[in-house]
């Protein structure tokens, strides 16, 4: 049960992160590879303020959101002239600068050791603390609801239409009198603010952060979520998050497969594998699963699973995924 609650909280955090990425990638076709780095900045701001200065929940949250917004403005200023491939490389470089700073600025971020001991939030005026995971779950989903309400508005108003239009034909949008530059930067700003919110929640929930939690692997996960849920689709992204967070979970139970088989067949495992045909079919599968359940294999296996899913989805939807034709 405890584990189930953990999964639901993680889903909540990723919902915020993925939906905000969906705003820039799905609507604006802005391939912002620095999204997870901004999320990392949000997590680090909260972690540092909470451990070093002992700031409260709302203070940390607001600071994380605003500082991430500031990073979005810097990113927007750097990348405003860039299109497509240049833009992807520019944001990739920006995210690499941030991860290099997280690793090397030891006096501030403690380098690869990370920041341990982030206290969970407490609301003294309500006499509530969030050390209990159920309470934290409620807090997370209140924030998810607020985020989704605001993002839903952003996905369905003039702003989204302008963003879509500029991704399709920048000059024509400009000719209609829309400020494409402002729209682009606003989409960064909004997405990064929500990424900061997700980072702040993550730091509070996990209590310990280090640079390895915010690597490119994480970016690929978020990208997979948005691509699986169809870029630009609000509820598709929700489906993608839930599906992909839960997908590798059965991998954790692979070491119990022989036990399950013994229970199913009512005989010890060596006897099962000796059954003609059926046993020969089962044995290689089971030994592969046992191999995959080793901790040193499980992590890369999970990465590979996401990469393969990303590829398969892109392969089968390659005509429709980022169409050149009009969609607005």
């Amino acid at each position: 049960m405890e584990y189930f609650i953990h999964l639901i909280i993680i889903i909540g955090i990723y919902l915020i992160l993925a939906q905000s990425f969906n705003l820039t990638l799905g609507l604006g076709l802005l391939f912002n590879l620095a999204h997870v780095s901004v999320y990392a900045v949000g997590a680090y701001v909260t972690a540092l303020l909470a451990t070093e200065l002992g700031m409260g929940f709302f203070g940390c949250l607001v600071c994380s959101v605003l500082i991430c917004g500031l990073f979005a403005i810097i990113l927007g200023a750097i990348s405003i002239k860039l299109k497509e491939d240049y833009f992807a490389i520019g944001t990739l470089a920006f995210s690499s600068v941030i991860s290099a700073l997280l690793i090397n600025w030891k006096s501030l971020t403690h380098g690869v050791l990370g920041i341990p001991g982030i206290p969970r939030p407490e609301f003294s005026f309500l006499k509530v603390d969030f050390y209990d995971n159920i309470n934290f779950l409620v807090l997370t989903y209140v924030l998810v609801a607020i985020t989704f309400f605001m993002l839903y508005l952003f996905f369905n108003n003039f702003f989204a239409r302008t963003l879509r239009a500029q991704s399709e034909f920048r000059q024509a949008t400009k000719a209609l009198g829309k400020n494409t530059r402002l729209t682009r930067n606003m989409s960064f700003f909004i997405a990064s603010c929500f990424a900061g919110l997700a980072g702040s929640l993550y730091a509070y929930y996990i209590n310990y952060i280090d640079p390895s939690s915010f690597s490119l692997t994480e970016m690929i996960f978020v990208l997979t979520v948005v691509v699986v849920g169809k870029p630009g689709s609000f509820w598709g992204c929700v489906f993608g998050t839930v599906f992909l967070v839960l997908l590798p979970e059965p991998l954790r139970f692979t070491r119990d497969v022989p036990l399950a088989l013994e229970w199913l067949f009512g005989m010890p495992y060596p006897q099962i594998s000796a059954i003609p045909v059926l046993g020969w079919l089962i044995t290689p599968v089971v030994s592969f699963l046992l191999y995959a359940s080793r901790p040193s294999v499980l992590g890369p296996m999970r990465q590979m699973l996401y990469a393969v899913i990303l590829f398969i989805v892109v392969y089968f939807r390659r005509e429709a995924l980022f169409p050149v034709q009009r969609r607005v």
Partner: protein
Amino acid sequence: MEILPQLLVNSLISGSIYALASAGLALVYGLLRVLNFAHGHFMMVGAYAFYFLAVEQAYGLPASAAFALLVIVLLAALSFKIFVEPFASLSFFLPFVTTLSLATIFESSVSIIFDVNVKSLTSGFEINSLSFAGIFITPVQIVIILSALVLLGLIAFIIHSTSLGRRIRALSQDDYAGQALGVSKKKINYLVFISGAVLAAYAGILIGYETNLQPTMGNAYTIKAFAAMILGGLGNLWGTIAGAYVLGLVENLSIGIDFWGYSLPAGYKDAFAFVMILLVLLFKPRGLFNKEAREA
């Protein structure tokens, strides 16, 4: 400034590695307009294939090199067939996303097969540095510099004075016109993609001798190769190679020289490549060596 000659030699060494690593990327981009994110991972896979035969199985150098070459040629052909070709003509995003997933697949398979710990190709024997007039250099580093010169010279010869090179140049300038004149785009694409991967793998093996191997090294070298390419202008082969040497120079000077009694910690060496990408994109988005204007 007695350290300056040593720094210059060091930057020549890292510049040579970056040049070997980024030449293939620039050729592929020039031909297909595809940013191959898995390029650095071909270095990693090639180096690990070499490591597998040379250290774990203790075969000789020629056998290991042949094996690594075979593995890379097969993998590159297969990757091109599956991960690049179906998407190259559709949208810029698609090949970038698929090569990102290819890169992750490479990285995680190597971490599963060989473990995530650092491996070294030179664990069996000791390398003595030679010293010339106060400059220390190992035989491996001499090989790196010389082979970069030889291989880049070979590329220059092929591109500029053979019929194959003429066909490659024709397709990178205008692929419709080239195809209309009877140049097989498919063959040239495979050839360029595979030879780029082989060059990268060769650079990866040299890195294995020079420092060490790790499954995560792919990303770092991909981004370095992107940096060299941005410096030289996307798709401009000679600009990219010049950019690689500039990158090596800036990286080594940035951490080696005292700025008024304060010097940067060595950990920031890598960050310099990324800061340079950002600066070039900000002030000279066409690259340092590109004259023609970009459209739109």
